């Protein structure tokens, strides 16, 4: 559905996108994961034809130039900013954007109504957007992206600054779009969103793709070991037989190790590829503990391992 080959974009001496290449299959939900300034939005802008790349090729639905009208007809975008007219009502906003895609008459009315219903704003359709909450604006932003029933939907950090209720609503919306067979490109710096929604994820940093794969494969390849953390009850000592990577952290030494756990007792930290076995050993040793945590590797770990820093650094 989408093919990007060696895409480059620079602003003066600053290289925003540096040789990005990837393919996205039809109906796939593809995540672009990276910290702010990684080049995700620039890539999206080039994908939709709003920004001319310095070099590289973009092909969407078999059309080699994203600035062509045929290409644009299959794309819907929810930009990072709300991208709505604040002095128009929700209904007027959607109607305006739908008409730009050539919709009219009953089809126009039906699509506007469907979109409002889809994002749960039908009852607020007649309100001026300025009076919407941040979450409602974000939802309307998504409604505007899907108003013309596009094959490809680009969601550029759609959940930034959104309350949990609206975020969950948006996740439901995106999952519904997946079920409807839409191809979705989703940029975010929230790993849990990418993990929940995306079939494949590209990890970007400094304009380059560091890794692309399914979430499971990325974790398996780059996530590292799981970490088991146990806080012992007072008067208990570390049992014998735990993994060779066992670390014993005295009470109050919060900063030791990679994990920042606030503990009052002695902390045991075990780096292992078989966390379940380590927990079983711990239970069998009859040692008393006040807290037990298992930290499995995730995309955050993947990013940390790939870049040496956290996503939100």
């Amino acid at each position: 559905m989408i093919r990007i080959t060696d895409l480059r974009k620079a602003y003066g001496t600053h290289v925003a996108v540096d040789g990005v290449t990837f393919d996205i299959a039809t109906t796939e939900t593809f995540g672009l994961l990276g910290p702010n300034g990684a080049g995700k939005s620039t890539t999206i802008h080039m994908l939709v034809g709003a920004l001319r790349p310095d070099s590289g090729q973009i092909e969407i639905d078999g059309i080699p130039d994203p600035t062509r009208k045929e290409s644009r007809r299959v794309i819907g975008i929810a930009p990072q900013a709300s991208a709505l007219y604040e002095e128009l009502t929700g209904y007027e906003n959607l109607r305006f954007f739908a008409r730009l895609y050539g919709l009219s008459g009953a089809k126009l009315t039906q699509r506007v109504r469907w979109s409002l219903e889809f994002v749960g704003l039908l009852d607020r359709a007649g309100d001026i957007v300025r009076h919407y909450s941040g979450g409602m604006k974000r939802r309307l932003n998504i409604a505007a992206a899907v108003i013309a029933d596009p094959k490809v939907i680009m969601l550029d950090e759609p959940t930034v600054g959104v309350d949990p209720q609206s975020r969950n609503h948006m996740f439901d919306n995106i999952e519904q779009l997946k079920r409807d067979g839409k191809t979705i490109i989703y940029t975010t710096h929230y790993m849990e969103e990418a993990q929940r929604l995306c079939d494949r994820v590209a990890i970007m940093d400094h304009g380059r793709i560091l890794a692309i794969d399914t979430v499971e494969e990325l974790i398996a390849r780059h996530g590292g070991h799981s970490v088991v953390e146990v806080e012992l009850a007072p008067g208990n000592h570390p049992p014998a037989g735990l993994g060779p990577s066992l670390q014993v952290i005295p009470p109050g030494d919060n900063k030791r190790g990679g994990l920042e756990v606030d503990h009052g007792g002695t902390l045991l930290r075990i780096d292992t590829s078989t966390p379940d076995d380590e927990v079983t050993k711990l239970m069998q040793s009859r040692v008393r503990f006040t807290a037990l945590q298992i930290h499995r590797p995730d995309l955050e770990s993947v990013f940390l391992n790939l870049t040496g820093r956290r996503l939100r650094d």
Partner: protein
Amino acid sequence: MRSIFIIAIKDLRLLWRDKLGLFWVIFFPLMMAVFFGSLFGGLGRRAPLPVIIVDEDKTDRSRDFIQRLYSADSVRFIKPDGSEAPPNQKIDVAQIGSRNIEDAEAMVRKSEVAAYVRLKPGFGKSLGFMPNIQFMELGVDPARRVEAGILQGVIMDSYTAPLRDMTRDPEVAKKSLAQAREDIVTSGIYTFRQQKGLRDFIRAFERLVVPEELDEEVPGADTTDDSDPATPDAPTSESPTGDAAEASTAEPAKGGEQAISGEQAKSDGGAKSGDSAATSSATESDEKEDGEPPASSIISTSAKIVEVRPEHKGPNTGYEISFPQSITWGIFGCLSVFAISLVQEQTQGTYLRLRVAPISRAQILAGKGFACWLACCTVSVLLIIFGRLVFRIEVDNPKALALAIVCSSFCFVGVMMFASVLGRSERAVGGSVWAINMPLAMLGGSMIPLVVMPPWMQTASSFSPVKWMILALEGAIWRGFSMAEMALPCLILIAFGVGTYIIGLLILLQRDS
């Protein structure tokens, strides 16, 4: 084209919902128009000048002059006690005038009046149809020289009024000229040679203003003068009073044949009933047959000359000056609103959404420009309609006005495009808009009239489209421009609009890429 309309309608809807924007686009210009129109004397007449009369001549002619001056709209008489003489009445000069010049001077010094008009003894002692202006004195406050100038004009108007009456009404002319003949002899101030010269002049003047038919009614009224022997030192033996009596009592030969002034004929509206209509027709036929119009027609055509040279026509009211200027401000308001809205599209992300839609960038900008143009035209038309309904603004050439509005609006769409790319935030663009508008307005005469500018600045003003816009609007409203005369300002406006639009577009394209 559909996309352009969709974008334009959206932008106009946004403008309509922007109350502050509407204020700058409509209400602010309206306030400016009303305010400056009032300053320019917008009610159509200047406040009458307060004047006190000192009549030391006390003759019929001085009283006649005072009555004429009193009838002028531009003057109001102040009595010695400071009260104002009631308008539109037959006045008693003894009551309204000052008894002595010292009191009148004091009132001028205290600014209780703008001036005194003193008619010294001898004012009425002159030829029959004009008082002697050498015996008139005008005392003005030096601080009110402008008003004094206006007053001089009013006085000259009253002073020459008898002469005008003569040219309009042959009967009046005959009486006045007869009186003049009498005055030549009775005044005792002219030598015989001077008397003869004056009589020759009066006879020539009489031939000009009195139709031949009336002249024939009083045979010998002055014909004997031609055969007078040249006896330089002897007073004439002729009895002018007899001539005058005959002339004054002479009836028009036939009512239907009496010539009327052009003004009267005009006021008759070409009605073909009664004597006047018949006379009018006769006059026209005479003109055709002789190839030369009768005397009365020649004199009465002076007003028509003004009409056929409309570039000398002035505005009827100050509002005809202030409303074209206010249109400038209205268009500036539109320019500001739309330039800011264009940058708002970019900062709020809607421009990206528009760019991603299956429409071209040219359509997006055309839609924006079309909305701006429509808003400018609408505001201009609304201001003109308001001025027409409330302040009786008269539009000389509606087609030319439509052209002026269309071209002015087009010009400032280009300026809007240029201004919108001079910043990347609403605040920056808002500042840029006014940084552009102010010099254009000041240089173009929207804030300071061009006439008070130094010559170099007047030359520089040609680089401001505001000058051409005001010229085009005034040309259509009161300068009486023909469509051909509208071409220059309109072409300049279009060229300026195209130029600034292209520059703005190039900057925007570069920025987008």
